[in-house]
């Protein structure tokens, strides 16, 4: 297996981008990534997209994006694993380069979520849950995470304020991210008093509906210096795990086994322990998600994640910095693009290019991208080459 490096990354400012089309979003991010490299020919493209069919009525996404990027005759594949589509696309690209099948691979992620109504977006997102035995009976995504939140709060005595500490911290980080959808400070009181969505989760516990794309360029590490002047970021661990799609089938609603299994495998491949990781981007689609994920990754013991968040242990200057980008909460959550953007933030952090949100002395970084209510999880570990 060959060593694989990230040599270029590209994003745009995320948000409600009504003037930009689905295909323009992707191409803009891809061109930004290519601009960081001297690459003139791609061997393959992998594009994370959860639901082009429901959000914009477009499938066959690999070919259309290759065409609009001015590429022809290369393999171009759409990768789908609900909100973990971007992470899964990165893993597909990593495997392609590591195996020697391809040299230069573009990994992208894209979602255009605001061309449909709020009802349309709720419907499209709910397809990542069990349609016949959860959604049929009235479950929504915030509803499923609310079931987890209540179980967690009752089992461990976590408080409303502790939950609120997560979005407050992520919005604080997002203030320093020029690409974030919501660059605004919020308080614990703001979260606690925001509109109820699914008790106990309020609107400021939830990540938003977002248009956006992200792209990065992979190549064998040995070619990295020739193809880019940027410091090469080596992917040293990659793993994916699944779990029951229906939340009610899990053995425990307060842990995420797919996260545990994927992080253990990725760290083992990387030859690292979780405490070797200096900076992490995790899937905070809801406040409770970041708390449970931080425990399932091994940063905190079961039931301790909420207090750790409230005590500042996950801040940029804390013991285990989590989501310096602002996370899904502040940066936005264009579902198919999120996993790729997480790897881009870790790339900025490891290159030392994260500006005011830079984690000091970041040498090893990790991403965790989740599909559905934890039915899938993808983890990557990266370090400066």
């Amino acid at each position: 297996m060959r060593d694989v490096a990230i040599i270029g990354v590209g994003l745009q400012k995320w948000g409600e981008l009504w003037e930009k089309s689905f295909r323009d979003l992707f191409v803009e991010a891809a061109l930004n990534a290519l601009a960081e490299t001297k690459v003139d020919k791609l061997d393959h493209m992998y594009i994370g997209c959860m639901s082009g069919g429901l959000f914009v009525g477009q499938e066959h996404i690999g070919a259309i994006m290759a065409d609009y990027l001015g590429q022809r005759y290369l393999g171009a594949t759409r990768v789908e694993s609900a909100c973990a589509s971007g992470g899964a696309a990165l893993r597909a690209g990593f495997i392609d380069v590591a195996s020697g099948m391809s040299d230069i691979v573009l990994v992208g992620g894209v979602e255009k979520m605001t061309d449909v109504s709020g009802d349309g977006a709720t419907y499209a997102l709910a397809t990542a849950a069990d349609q016949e035995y959860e959604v049929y009976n009235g479950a929504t995504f915030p509803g499923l995470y609310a079931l987890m939140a209540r179980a967690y709060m009752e089992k461990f005595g976590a408080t409303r304020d502790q939950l609120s500490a997560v979005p407050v911290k992520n919005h604080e980080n997002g203030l320093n991210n020029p690409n974030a959808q919501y660059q605004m400070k919020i308080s614990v009181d703001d979260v606690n008093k925001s509109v109820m969505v699914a008790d106990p989760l309020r609107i400021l516990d939830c990540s938003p509906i977002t248009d956006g794309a992200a792209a990065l360029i992979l190549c064998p590490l040995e070619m990295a210096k020739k193809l880019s002047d940027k410091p090469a970021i080596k992917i040293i661990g990659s793993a994916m795990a699944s779990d029951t799609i229906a939340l009610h089938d899990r053995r425990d609603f307060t842990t995420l086994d797919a996260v545990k299994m994927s992080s253990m495998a990725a760290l083992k491949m990387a030859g690292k322990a979780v405490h070797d990781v200096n900076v992490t981007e995790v899937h905070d689609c809801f406040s409770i998600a970041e708390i449970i994920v931080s425990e399932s990754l091994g940063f905190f013991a079961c039931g301790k994640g909420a207090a750790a968040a409230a005590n500042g242990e996950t801040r940029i200057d804390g013991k285990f910095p989590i989501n310096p980008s602002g996370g899904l909460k502040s940066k936005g959550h264009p579902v198919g693009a999120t996993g790729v953007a997480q790897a881009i933030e870790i790339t900025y952090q490891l290159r030392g290019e994260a500006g005011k949100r830079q984690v000091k002395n970041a040498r090893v970084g990790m991403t965790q991208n989740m599909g559905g209510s934890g039915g899938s999880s993808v983890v990557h570990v990266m370090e400066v080459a």
Partner: protein
Amino acid sequence: MMFPARYHREMPHRYRMEASKCKKCGAVYFPHRLICRECKGREFETITLSERGKLLSYTVIHTPASQFKDIAPYALGILETKEGAKLTAQIVDLPYEEIRTGMELQIEFRRVQTDGHEGVLAYGYKLVPVM
């Protein structure tokens, strides 16, 4: 959109609470499966789930999918039957403030969705207080 075939094939579970019990290890599945997650067994017997179970968690949904707009806010919970099957269902006929994790609830046959004025009426199970 509720198409009749899609709705019809789930009737044994939604109407009659039929579940599958693995003949090899005894694991119970609701709805049925073709292979046991625990032991990979492929032979099952059909059982009917108990009418009562314990509430494991719940929420009150204020922002629903469009087909549930008329009944929002509504409570939704996860119930475990004594056979060990777990299911997600709405909790009705009970004020929200009286819902508690761990309480015993009863499964009842109710209308779940209505697909417009002339579409399929979709039935299934909801959770109600024990009578």
